[in-house]
C-alpha cells in the first residue's frame, strides 16, 4: 500500500495518459457521475441521507470526498450508453449500404467505483462482455475503486455476498482517510505502473491497519440485509403466489425507476428510424425496462400485462433466474432501487415478506 496525500498526482498522471476521468460530483441536489477536470470537483464535505424513496445531501466531513453512497446513476452508463446509435444506412442500387463504423472509445478512468458497483461491473462483463461495443469500452476503461467507510441506510452489500472492501476487478484500490489522504494499492500492471509514477511512499503497518479497521467496521453498519434463505428457491416456489404479486401491484407504479438505477440491469430496446427522405436509416439502442408493458409485446399483446407479473419478473430475474443464466445473483446490494422507488418499495423488505409467507 502506498500513501497519497491527495488525488492531484493521480489526476495529473491519468490526464497525461489521455484518460478522461469520470467520477462522482454534486449536481442538482444529488451525487451524479460526470467528467471531472480536477479533484476539487469531487463531492467533498457531503454525506447522503437515504431511506426507501428518500435521498438528501447533508453536510459531511470537509476533507473527505467519498463519505457518500451510490447516487442515482450507475457506471453502466459509460459502458453501455443510452441512447446509442448502432449503425446507419443509406439506400443505394444494391438496396442499401450499412455503416457500422464507430469512433474508438475514449480511454476512461472510472474513479470512485464502490465495491458494490465493482461487483456490478463484473456481472455486466458476464452479460454483455461478448458484445463488441461493450468489450471495446470495457478494455478502454481503467477502474479506480474506493472502499466504503460510510455505508448508508439502504445498503445491504454484505448480505448480498459482498462487502465494503474492493476485492478484485479494479486497477487501483483506494481507502480514504479522515485527513483526506489515501492509501492506494494496485491490482493490475496498469495500476502498478500508474502508482509507480506517482513516487508515493509506502504506508506504514499502523496506517494500513487503521485504514483496514475503518473499512471492516463499515461491514457491521449496513442499514439493511437480505433474508438468510435460498432466495432462488423462495422466488421459484412463489412464482404462482398470485395474492402476493397482486398486492405488490397495488403499490408499484411500474415507473421503471428501480431498473434504471440498478447497476446490473442491462435490458435494451432497438428502434429503427429514417429521415424524411427515406434515404437514410439508423438503428438506435436505448435502455429498456421489464416494467414497460411493451417490453414483452408479441403480436396480440404483452406477455406480462399485469404490474404484478412485471414486478415478479424484476425481482425474480435479479435473485433467481440470474443464477441460471449467469451463474450467480444479479443483485450487489447497492440499495439504489430502495432509495429511488417513488413509493418506497424496499426490495429487501419484499423478500423478507415473501420468506415470512413460508412460515405463516
Amino acid at each position: 500500500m502506498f500513501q497519497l496525500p491527495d488525488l492531484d498526482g493521480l489526476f495529473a498522471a491519468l490526464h497525461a495518459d489521455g484518460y478522461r476521468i469520470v467520477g462522482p460530483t454534486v449536481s442538482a441536489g444529488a451525487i451524479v457521475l460526470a467528467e471531472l477536470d480536477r479533484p476539487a470537483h469531487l463531492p467533498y464535505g457531503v454525506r447522503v441521507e437515504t431511506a426507501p424513496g428518500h435521498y438528501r445531501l447533508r453536510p459531511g466531513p470537509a476533507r473527505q470526498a467519498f463519505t457518500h453512497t451510490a447516487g442515482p446513476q450507475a457506471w453502466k452508463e459509460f459502458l453501455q450508453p443510452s441512447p446509442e446509435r448502432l449503425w446507419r444506412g443509406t439506400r443505394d442500387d444494391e438496396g442499401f449500404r450499412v455503416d457500422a463504423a464507430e469512433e474508438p472509445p475514449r480511454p476512461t478512468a472510472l474513479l470512485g467505483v464502490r465495491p458494490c458497483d465493482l461487483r456490478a461491473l463484473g456481472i455486466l462483463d458476464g452479460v454483455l462482455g461478448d458484445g463488441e461495443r461493450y468489450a471495446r469500452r470495457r478494455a478502454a476503461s481503467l477502474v479506480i475503486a474506493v472502499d466504503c467507510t460510510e455505508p448508508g441506510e439502504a445498503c445491504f452489500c454484505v448480505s448480498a455476498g459482498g462487502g465494503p472492501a474492493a476485492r478484485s476487478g479494479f486497477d487501483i484500490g483506494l481507502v480514504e482517510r479522515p485527513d483526506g489522504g489515501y492509501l492506494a494499492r494496485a491490482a493490475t500492471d496498469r495500476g502498478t505502473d500508474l502508482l509507480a509514477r506517482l513516487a508515493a511512499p509506502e504506508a506504514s503497518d499502523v496506517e494500513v491497519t487503521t485504514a483496514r479497521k475503518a473499512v471492516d467496521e463499515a461491514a457491521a453498519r449496513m442499514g439493511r440485509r437480505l433474508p438468510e434463505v435460498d432466495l432462488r428457491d423462495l422466488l421459484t416456489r412463489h412464482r404462482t403466489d398470485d395474492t402476493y404479486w397482486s398486492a405488490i401491484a397495488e403499490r408499484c407504479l411500474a415507473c421503471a425507476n428501480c431498473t434504471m438505477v440498478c447497476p446490473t440491469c442491462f435490458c435494451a430496446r432497438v428502434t429503427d428510424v429514417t429521415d424524411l427522405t427515406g434515404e437514410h436509416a439508423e438503428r438506435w439502442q436505448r435502455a429498456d425496462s421489464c416494467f414497460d408493458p411493451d417490453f414483452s409485446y408479441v403480436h396480440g399483446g404483452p406477455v406480462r400485462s399485469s404490474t404484478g407479473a412485471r414486478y415478479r419478473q424484476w425481482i425474480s430475474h435479479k435473485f433467481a433466474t440470474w443464477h441460471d443464466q449467469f451463474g450467480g445473483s444479479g443483485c450487489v446490494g447497492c440499495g439504489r432501487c430502495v432509495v429511488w422507488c417513488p413509493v418506497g418499495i424496499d426490495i429487501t423488505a419484499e423478500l423478507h415478506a415473501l420468506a415470512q409467507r413460508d412460515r405463516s
Partner: protein
Amino acid sequence: MNTDPAPHRYRVVVNRAETPDTSTLTLRPVDAPLPAFLPGQFAMLYAFGIGEIPVSVSGRCGAGGLMHTVRAVGAVSRAVHDCPPGGFLGVRGPFGRPWTLPAPRDADVVVVAGGLGLAPLHPLVRHLRDHRVRYRSVAVLIGARTPDDLLYRAEYRRWRADGLDVRVTVDRPLPGWNGATGLVTALLTGLRPQPGRCAGYVCGPEVMMRPVVRSLATIGMPTSRVELSLERNMQCGTGHCGHCQLGPLFVCRDGPVVPATAAENLLAVREL
C-alpha cells in the same frame, strides 16, 4: 454466435403468396453470405427504415440462400411480406437452438404444426422426407384456421407419396373442404409411437402446444422426447437485450426450440 449488429443485404428472388396474408420469400445474399442456418433457427429480417423482426428459416437454409414464410400482422412483417422480387432485405443470424436432428434411427416421429407453426417445421419435414428410410414412421399433423390458411398445401401430396403420414384439420371448413374439422390433437388418434424410440416436434400457438404435449403423452410419447418452438419478443438475437426471457431461458439463445419438459413448467405459469 454472430453478434455483428449490422444486417447483411439479401435480394428477394421469389415472393410466392402462400395464403391471403402469408408469403414465402426466397433470398440470395448480395455480399458475403451468413453462415448456414439449421432447421429451427431464425433470422432477424430487416426492412429498410421500418424495422427488424425474428423469422424462422422455413426451407432452404444453406449459405447460398434462405427461405422465409412471413405472415403480415404489423408494420415490419407487412413490409417483409410485400417485398417484391428484386427488392432488398437485411438479414442477421443464424440465431437460436435448432431442432434436434436426426431423430433416433427407426423412431416413430410425430410432427405437430398449428397455423404458422408449420413454417419453422417445414425444413424439418423436408429432412424427414429425405431420410424417410431412417425412421419407422413419420406423421405430420397440420392444423389451420381454414383451408385457405394451410401453408405449403401443394406439397402435401408429394410428402404422402414419399411415405409421410400427413393429416390435416381445420377449425372452420370452407365450401369444398372434405377433410377433417376440429382440433389438431384429434389427429393423433391411432398413432402408437414406441415410447423408447420416438421423437415429437411441435410448433404453434402456446394455447395449442400444451394440450398437444399432454395428448402425445397419452398416446405413449414421453414428454422428454418432445421439442417445442417458442415465441417471445426479440430485438437482438444474442441474449443481450433481455426481451425474450421466459423464466431462466433467453428464448433467442436457449430456444426457440426447447425441450418440452423445460417449457411445460414455465408455460404453466401465467404471464411469466
